[in-house]
């Protein structure tokens, strides 16, 4: 019945790829830690695959509700100025790390 638990394999290349996509630059020690954590996460997902779901409809959401819509009306209960701390703002803009394509 149950599928056997496969041995998750994460090679250093995959670590590098995921780190790149997340724009992270981990050092060697962090890579070891990341690998352990990712393998634990993958094992948890494997656990989810234990039950036989061949005849079960996939669900996207725990609640079957659909069509939760709102009318096209402006409602701004927040003052946008409160969203930007002065330490990261400049002339109303946010300052992000320099990115040049």
């Amino acid at each position, binding site marked *: 019945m149950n599928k056997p638990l496969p041995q998750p394999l994460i090679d250093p290349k995959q670590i590098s790829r995921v780190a790149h996509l997340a724009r992270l630059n981990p050092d060697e020690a962090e890579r070891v830690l990341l690998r352990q954590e990712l393998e634990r996460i993958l094992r948890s997902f494997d656990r989810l695959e234990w039950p036989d779901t061949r005849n079960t409809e996939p669900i*996207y959401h725990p609640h079957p509700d659909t*069509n939760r819509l709102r009318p096209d009306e402006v409602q701004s209960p927040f003052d*946008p100025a409160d969203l930007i701390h002065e330490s990261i703002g400049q002339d109303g803009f946010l300052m992000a790390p320099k990115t040049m394509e």
Partner: protein
Amino acid sequence: MTWDTIVGLEVHVELATTSKIFCGCPTLFGRPPNTQCCPVCSGFPGALPVLNQQVIEYALRVCLATDCTINSLIRFDRKNYFYPDLPKGYQISQQHQPIGRGGKLVITTDNGDKAIGIHEIHIEEDAGKLIHDPQGKHTLVDYNRCGIPLLEIISRPDLNSAEEALDYLDKLRRLLLFIGVSDCRMEEGSLRADVNVSVRPTGSKVLGTRTELKNMSSMKAMALAIAYESRRQIKILTEGGRIRQETRRWDENEKRSFALRIKENVEDYRYFPDPDLMAIRINDHWIKNTRELLPELPDAKYQRYLTTLDLTAYEASILTSHPALADLFEATVAICGRAKDVAGWIMGEWLQECNQRACRPQDLKVTPEKLARLVRLLAEGDITRGTARQVFIQMIDNQADPDDYVHRHNLRMIRDIKTIDAAIDQAMAAHPRSVADYRAGKNKVRTFLVGQAMRVLQGKADPALLNRRLLEKLNTPD
């Protein structure tokens, strides 16, 4: 060897909703940075999106107008990538169950009509704007645009030249304007086109490696970019090289494109269903209601102008380039008939005034009723074209009523032969040298004398009659 160019367009269009797609922030253009944001659209943890109903309405209109098959159940997915224009670290988009697939748009080519396939239409949210200051230490971010609803309309690679791509974009722009879903301003970024270009030897059935072109801010720039890219690829292949799949940025000043980055693969975006948003069911009733509300589409309008109103292709094309022009034209013709005269006035004086005032066609505050009466006065020979122009300016600037203005300022066209003769005599007497010059064979002087006689009558004389009488007098020696 000859080469074929294969072009596909990915058009992003901002929908003209008053509030953003997942929050109640306003969508106005050109506001100070970060003044139209809230925790939802700037990605604060715990903030939850709620979908704007109007976005679905508008998306349905576009799907129906392009003959797409509409999915009865649509969902939203997260497209994950890290870049400062995206505060949440993902963009809400549709990857697995988009709203529409498999439509078409008909363009006009030298060889007649050609249907361009529409692969897919999906809904997503716009990202923020970045300002890269080469000298500065930071990239400046404005999140006002974050969460403005977008439709991405992806064509099939059915286009074969820059001209076809231009016509496709123009047809699409007209369609979107007429169904009222967007203002389609390329210069403000509410209509943006990314272009996929590849080339292949003529006759080959295999698609070549394609590149994606970005950052064209006008139709003209897009045409230049496609032509440039096609030439660049052909040159590389002819010299035995290979095309790299990459994104290239069009530089408007240098009129060439530059490689940006090797494209990330679809799997790098790690799409997954957004757990914060519920699915949307679109039933037949909803589709039927939307279909019934669709106005006459620009292609049908164009055909009708040609066949029942007897306009030329050029006239019909200009008048169907913007709903404001078509609406004005039709409302005016409904009152006074005279489609040709109304078309002529709108395409001439109306657009000329808009041009001079740097305003949009709908910004001239002249009602169809008043325009109809002006056109009638001119067409029935009650006033000259010069007078009509003068009255038109008064109508725009001072809301003048054409009949009333003509009456009060005594501007009716003068057709009385005695009055016209007297004016001609006066002009000829005042300029005996010109008269002599004309009689000595300097034909050009006539125009000057016409002008002088017209001036005597404040430009109100029947021009044909005045011309004829002047000619008779000049050719009859005293």
